[in-house]
């Protein structure tokens, strides 16, 4: 397996959506190719860091303000469509 071939399979490998045989080939490649090992590892870390970052969390006060606005507009829409 070449590095390019490895890279093509990287997403399926990280998502664990790959057949056993291809997985074994990829893991064999990782045994001896340091570059692919590092790319694989740091890509996995990239995903984990974003997933765990709580980037763009909705603050409670804004959350209830938005919800009130949504519900009030829904009620207006309902009243209009019933009129």
């Amino acid at each position: 397996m070449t590095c390019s071939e490895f890279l093509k399979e990287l997403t399926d490998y990280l998502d664990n959506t790959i057949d056993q045989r291809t997985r074994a080939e990829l893991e064999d490649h990782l045994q001896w190719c340091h570059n692919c090992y590092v790319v694989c590892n740091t890509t996995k870390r990239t995903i984990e860091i974003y997933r765990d970052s709580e980037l763009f969390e909705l603050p409670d006060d804004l959350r209830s303000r938005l919800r009130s606005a949504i519900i009030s507009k829904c009620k207006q829409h309902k009243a209009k469509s019933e009129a």
Partner: protein
Amino acid sequence: MGAIESKVGEPVSDESVLVDAARNGDVGAFEQLVRRYDRNVFRIAQHITQNREDAEDVVQDAFLKAFQNLGQFQGQSKFYTWLVRIAVNEALMRLRRRRPERTVSLDEDIKTEEDSMPREVADWSPNPEQLYSQAELKDILSKTIQGLPPGFRAVFVLRDVEGLSTEETAEALNLSIPAVKSRLLRARLQLRERLNKFFKRRNGDSGQ
């Protein structure tokens, strides 16, 4: 409201009861759906628009549109996937308004050579996120993802942050499954490469 008492994250079977009730005009049932998914919609909206005010507008408009169009929701997909599709379209529309000089679409590409190995391959510190304060880290992550085109941000946030399946992401973004996979790979590799300069191992870092 009546007998329907649901919390965020409860099974989809309860959800179809809420959706049916909301479709029949039960605003209380719809409010339960809002409570269940408002955080997710906000995160998705802000990842795509990269703007707090736009994200707030997207949350409001997406839920209102969903309520208004529940009659068209057939129940063949999950309510959440259908809602995300509405929210992504709203977010892209906001971006277009903000950046009329540029084409904003899911088709915008990034310049990478998909078949080639990243040029700079340096290992990262053992716990790279601990090199920075939480505020600094959020700033780095936010600015880094901002560098990707909106369509790639959308695929990344749906698959890797929100945990939608490839099939759900394809449905929400109206893309083919191969297109989702290809964009996801490139988005992940781009983010990895951009984070390199912040996270790579420096002299004096202890190894593992």
